[in-house]
């Protein structure tokens, strides 16, 4: 389900709108993932605090959004562009790739709460495809 030119331009335009709120989105999406899908907490057992507004959740949310920004910039070659991140998640952190889908859903929900007027069905389609492709690129180096 590769990205068409139209998908890419919809993603870029939508990202330009949401980027100013990146920190809030990152924190909110990550916190929702941890509470709604508590099995994901297993990857963060070393965090002293997982509550809403806590430093680890805020900081990690920021990192995730930074990764997504990079993905948007390298949308024409996600596998190549996310290679280092994929290796990191595959070999060091060993995150089960099923979790990327879970985080993608939470990101989409947060975008829906903050940008209901911009998340038209066409943008929803393009962004959902984009997140699925990011998940694939993140899983690329696993085996």
């Amino acid at each position, binding site marked *: 389900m590769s990205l068409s030119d139209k998908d890419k331009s919809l993603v870029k335009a939508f990202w330009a709108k949401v980027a100013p709120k990146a920190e809030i989105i990152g924190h*909110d999406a990550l916190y*929702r993932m941890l*509470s*709604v899908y508590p099995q994901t907490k297993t990857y963060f057992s070393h965090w002293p605090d997982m509550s809403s507004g806590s430093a680890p959740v805020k900081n990690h949310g920021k990192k995730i959004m930074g990764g997504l920004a990079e993905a948007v910039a390298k949308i024409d070659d996600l596998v190549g562009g996310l290679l280092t991140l994929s290796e990191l998640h595959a070999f060091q952190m060993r995150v089960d790739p099923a979790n990327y889908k879970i985080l993608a859903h939470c990101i989409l*929900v947060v975008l829906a*709460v*903050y940008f209901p007027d911009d*998340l038209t*069905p066409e943008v*929803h389609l393009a962004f959902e495809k984009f997140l699925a492709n990011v998940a694939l690129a993140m899983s690329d180096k696993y085996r």
Partner: protein
Amino acid sequence: MVEWTDAERSAITGLWGKISVDEMGPQALARLLIVFPWTQRYFASFGNLSSPAAIMGNPKVAAHGKVVMGGLDRAVKNLDNVKATYAQLSKLHSEKLHVDPDNFVLLADCITVCAAMKFGPSAFTPDVQEAWQKFLCVVVAALRRQYH
């Protein structure tokens, strides 16, 4: 048996009380058909589904959206017995309609996105999302139950 906390019950019924089946049903179904176009295979008789605009303007999609969302109402009103409430519906989807049950999750996700858009960050909080997600998981499991 599914155990619901008082907070979960009130989050689910509270949210449902503010949802218009006639409004959200068509939106969620249209999004399913647009965002996950392979689901159109079950709606060959619905006429023009060739573009997002066609899908959103299609009266059969709208009508069926209301039917589907109306089905959720029975689950909300029977939170302690969704499995039994949905037994016939599950058989229908399996034996008559031959719907791949993975599609139920896709529709559940579309309903969640529509709810998120409607209620915004102050009402669709992480706690509410958690209760809502649990509810939709129970609904999907009940719909899958009669598949053999």
